[in-house]
């Protein structure tokens, strides 16, 4: 137990340095590109004069030397202030917290769907390897895996949104509907189907293939043969001996994906007008909203590190032979 706490402590200390590195590096990198947020605003306005640009730079603090801007920013970070969005005129933390739940809802649903369906299909295919069910699952998984997400999304929209008219094609809820409680939840669920399916199908294919391959590998190991020789029921062998031991790569991949996905899926959030953090980051890049972008990087880094740590801890649950800190 002490080893586990020590391991977590070590990882947290390392995480602080990683995050500081991310902040400084990104702070400087983003300023290397020509142009700044004041010029972007001037460009979009289609009219500007020197006072307009100078006033904006002063307002954004961009009239200060870069090193001083960095010191001010770091000072803010240490006191828990992620700064203010040039563009959206709102505190960064508020903006991120407004969008993060939507992204977690979308990616969480997609990931849950992908893991449950993907692992089930993978296990089914592995158990009946060489059968028609295996062939269908393997072929479908390959097809979905190879299909570009934007195209898959568009096809789903055309089928369910336009041809059949069953599902809305964009947004997170029906505006001005007056829905509350369960009606609101159902409305959000209807809007969630297409984006989460588009995002989840790709990962489902990955998990199906991963589970199948991993289970086939484990099935050949000695302890499985021993289990069967002891006369254990085939279902128990499959679930407790093979599937459980085959899950390690799935857990690894899911941990990596979860960390990556909390940063939002720019593509899916854009195609389906889903108000998540991926789109927020993309828009921040386009308009050079330095503070917002850095804020998203910081939050995303923290979440990636947290998910990696969680994955390591999950290893010990899935396979008790693994000890943390060793």
């Amino acid at each position, binding site marked *: 137990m002490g080893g586990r706490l020590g391991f977590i402590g070590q990882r947290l200390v390392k995480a602080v340095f990683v995050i500081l590195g991310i902040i400084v590096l990104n702070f400087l990198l983003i300023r290397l590109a020509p*142009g700044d947020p004041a010029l972007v605003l001037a*460009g979009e306005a289609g009219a500007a*004069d020197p006072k307009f640009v100078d006033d904006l730079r002063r307002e954004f603090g961009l009239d200060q030397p870069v090193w001083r801007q960095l010191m001010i920013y770091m000072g803010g970070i240490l006191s828990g202030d992620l700064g203010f969005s040039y563009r959206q005129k709102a505190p960064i933390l508020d903006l991120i917290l407004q969008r993060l739940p939507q992204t977690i809802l979308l990616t969480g649903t997609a990931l849950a769907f992908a893991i449950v369906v993907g692992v089930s299909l993978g296990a089914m295919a592995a158990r009946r390897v060489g059968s028609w069910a295996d062939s269908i699952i393997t072929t479908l998984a390959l097809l979905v895996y190879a299909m570009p997400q934007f195209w898959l999304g568009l096809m789903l929209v055309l089928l369910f949104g336009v041809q059949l008219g069953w599902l*809305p094609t964009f947004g997170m809820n029906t505006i001005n509907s007056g829905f509350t409680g369960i009606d609101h939840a159902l409305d959000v669920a209807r809007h969630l189907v297409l984006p989460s399916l588009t995002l989840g199908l790709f990962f489902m294919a990955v998990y199906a293939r991963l589970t199948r391959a991993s289970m086939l590998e484990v099935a050949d190991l000695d302890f499985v043969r021993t289990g069967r020789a002891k006369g254990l029921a085939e279902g128990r062998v499959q679930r407790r001996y093979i599937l459980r031991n085959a899950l390690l790569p799935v857990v690894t991949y899911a941990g990596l994906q979860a960390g990556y996905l909390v940063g939002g899926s720019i593509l899916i959030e854009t195609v389906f*007008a889903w*108000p998540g953090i991926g*789109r927020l980051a993309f*828009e921040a890049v386009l308009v*050079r909203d330095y503070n917002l972008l850095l804020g998203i990087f910081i939050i995303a880094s923290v979440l990636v590190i947290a998910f990696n740590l969680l994955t390591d801890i999950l290893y010990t649950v899935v396979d008790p032979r693994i000890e943390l800190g060793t």
Partner: protein
Amino acid sequence: MASRRQVLGSAAALLAGGTMGMPRLARAQQKRGGVLTAILNPEPPLLVLGLNQQAPTQLVAGKIYQGLLRYDFALKPLPSLAKSWTVSPDGLTYTFRLEEGVKWHDGAPFTADDVVFSCAKFLPEVHPRARATFERCESITAADKFTVVFKLKAPFEPFLYAFLPAGAPMMPKHIYDGTDYRANPKNATPIGTGPFKFREWVKGSHITLVRNDEYWKPGRPFLDGVTYRVIPDAAARALAVETGQVDLAQGNDVEAFDVPRLAKLAHLELSTKGYETVAPISWIEINHRTAPFSDKRFRQAMMHAIDRDFIVKNIFFGLGRPASGPINTATRFHDAKAIKRYPYDLKRAEVLLDEMGLRPGAGGVRARIKMMVLPYGEVWVRQAEYVKQALRRVGIDVTLESNDAGGWVKRIGDWDYETSFDFVSQFMDPAMGVARTYISSNIRKGVPFTNTMGYVNPRVDELFDKAPKQTDPAKAQAMYSEVQAILTEDVPVVWLTELEFPVLINKRFRNVNIDANGPNSEFDEAHLA
């Protein structure tokens, strides 16, 4: 002459009262109720029109804030917050009589003090175009509670074109006076005099406006509200219009290639009106500071080498007109007869390049140039690819350069380019949006949308200076005609297209697009069919 015409015009406006400019056909039976859902893309940074005039801001804030005047499709000024106006015979004094009984959305009365505050204090501080306009005023005063007098330092005939909602939005004095305008906490909940009040902004999703029940025009607005949905993907926007999930798409919401298909749908109506106040022209901007760009024959050769009809037909799918000169045909003082024409003529282009001594070298290349692509959407990339191919036919080898928006503005402003695509709005009168590109006093490094080419012609400077001071429109026209002749001879930029934008409206609604400000307008006459 001009002042007399304007006085007569204002008298007519007085007689017509608040209904001036309202389509007669629609006056009969409007249905009250309904919410119009429109596309919003991209999401605006804020909704305070005095502080930000970007296209998406204008769309939403144009329902919240108002100007003193509106303009019909022919750019004739119409009453809005100002119910009448007069211009003194010497062209120096503009007197506006305001509507009485107008209230801000928070219930405070709108008076002449608000107009004086907006035009003399707020806008000159934060609004570049308004600053240029109101710097021309010697004084802006309230003659009484509902009368405002603008005294100009020198005659400026286009002064009446400065009062578009986005050009000079009226801002509430009681909220902003004595504060830091940009940091005012009320910026999050904009307060205007318009027919719709701000209700909710869910970032990344939608903005909701609701009917202003205290609106000053009796019985208006008809709609219960207007909702703007943020839809970042072009294909999703087209589908949203097609499936009736949104009722209105405007500007660049729908890709040009999708417009003909959508326009054929039974529930949609297409119009290209409603952008006369901006009337932008797209062009190739040319840095005159280096060879071969400093030689006008090179620029003329480019004009001849590009098929502008092809661009309109195949890149903008018929939306727009080939541009032939500096003043848009929708802008005041355009003179088709004064313009030197450059028909699509590859032979003529080659002759001009030959005269310059630019003979074909290896691979038939006469000159290698760099061209920045506009970073505002795919249609500009397609145009750039066509121009690259077109110029290659006369031996000009183009290397296209891509930048993001910040980088592009920086390079244009810093004159760090050879050639670049651009488009610039004209704001109804040459003095408002055309002169700034060509006059030498506007060569200002670091500032976009100025004379970034470095074009200098003293006669052009003189004409652009004198024309707006003429109170006789015939004299102004003569000067602007001469400017158009000179500029089309000099070709400071390679004009490409007079841009038009599609407005797709669900036929469930009527009277949505009724003036030169189109979808940016108030929608106080819009109603269910």
